[in-house]
């Protein structure tokens, strides 16, 4: 956060020390011999053939606990070497308090640990990196960024929701390192688009009542309850396709690099229609646009790090690889992050 221009920020010395993705072991195959033609078509169009979802007793926070403990073991950390936990999620255990404070206790971190939540969805991972850098620049030594959602709602009557969303959590250890290249962050918000992707009931505007849980046919022909996610597909499509390429170019121009110099474009995994349209308009090869949709579904804010660990394996952490991440969706909100690897980062994908 040293320099600013057109809402673009330079982040000095920020290093992704270790990235751990945690997917639930429970896997759902979208298409089987009993699947209706409607679901088969949906699966084909949005590009999701299977996904991982929380089993009974599992929650986003329990995946987080697993990820934090795994990371502590891998890095051989003492608990007092973690100064803070920042959780980015829209799937908290409780409306209050946030999930970060629960994780501080469950993982046995010291009482002087900073811990708080950020309420963001698809754009959340780059935001988390940016916010964590602020704390590190202020003197903290290590921040754990815990990002993801438990979006899948078993029993939902909304077939689109039932197919689209998967569950995941990722834990990223962030430190400052004098030898790492500058990172670039850019963001934006358009709150007028809130109804393009939201949950109508459960907040102060419409608290949950018995009626909130009754499935009803809405004006678009979708059967859903008041606590189900409402998603205006065409609106989100135009927003995403119209925005992402411009944002990617803006950040690359600022960094004075050509789009061809980017090794990996890791985009939020919205759906195949959106992600393929963006890639085809940019005329880039598939290898540079890794996807995790087909096996993990849309995992909200976790989809960027999940794609990095599940598809790029260790290739994104080879020395001097340039990865540009772009999250976009609920809010409407978007964020872009350009990271150049040092070569000694660590990357894992585990199943819980």
């Amino acid at each position, binding site marked *: 956060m040293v320099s600013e221009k057109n809402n673009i920020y330079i982040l000095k010395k920020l290093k992704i020390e270790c990235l751990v993705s945690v997917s639930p072991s429970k896997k759902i195959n979208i298409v089987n011999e009993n699947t209706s033609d409607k679901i088969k*078509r*949906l699966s084909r*169009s949005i590009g999701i053939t299977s996904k991982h979802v929380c089993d009974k007793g599992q929650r986003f926070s329990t995946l987080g606990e697993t990820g934090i403990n795994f990371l502590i073991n891998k890095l051989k950390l003492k608990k007092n070497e973690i100064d803070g936990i920042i959780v980015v999620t829209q799937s908290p255990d409780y409306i209050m308090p946030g999930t970060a404070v629960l994780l501080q206790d469950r993982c046995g971190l010291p009482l002087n640990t900073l811990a708080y939540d950020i309420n963001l969805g698809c754009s959340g991972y780059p935001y988390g990196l940016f916010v964590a850098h602020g704390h590190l620049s202020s003197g903290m030594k290590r921040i754990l960024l815990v990002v993801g959602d438990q979006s899948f709602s078993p029993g939902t009557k909304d077939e689109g929701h039932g197919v689209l969303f998967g569950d995941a959590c990722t834990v990223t250890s962030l430190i400052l390192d004098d030898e790492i290249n500058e990172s670039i962050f850019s963001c934006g918000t358009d709150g007028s688009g809130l109804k393009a992707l939201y949950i109508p009931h459960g907040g102060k505007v419409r608290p949950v009542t018995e009626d909130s849980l009754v499935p009803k046919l809405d004006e678009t022909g979708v059967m859903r309850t008041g606590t189900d996610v409402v998603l205006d*597909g065409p609106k989100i499509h*135009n927003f995403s*396709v119209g925005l992402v390429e411009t944002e990617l170019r803006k950040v690359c121009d600022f960094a004075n690099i050509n789009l061809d110099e980017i090794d990996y474009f890791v985009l939020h995994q919205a759906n195949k*229609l959106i992600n393929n*349209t963006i890639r085809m*308009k940019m005329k880039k090869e598939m290898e540079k646009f890794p996807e995790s949709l087909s096996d993990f579904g849309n995992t909200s804010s976790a989809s960027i790090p999940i794609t990095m660990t599940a598809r790029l394996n260790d290739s994104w952490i080879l020395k001097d690889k340039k990865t540009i991440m772009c999250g976009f969706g609920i809010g409407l909100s978007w964020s872009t992050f350009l990271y150049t690897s040092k070569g000694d980062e660590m990357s894992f994908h585990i199943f819980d």
Partner: protein
Amino acid sequence: MTFDDFLEGLVTSIDMPGVTTLDPDTPFCEIADFDSLATLGVMTFSEIEFNKQINGEKLWDDKTTPKQLYDRLNGK
């Protein structure tokens, strides 16, 4: 792109069971079972083939036909 190629591309993009051809003058919204997924197919096709963004809501509200869409995408 010829109009025949346009219609063929649209049929592939909307991916509707049993729909193998489109009538040039039947509004999209009057095609049986034309849904939001089919709308997204039309939008994606327009973006990729014509580099033009169309409003999915207007496709319904204006009762746009394939012929009208073809002309609009070609700037007529």
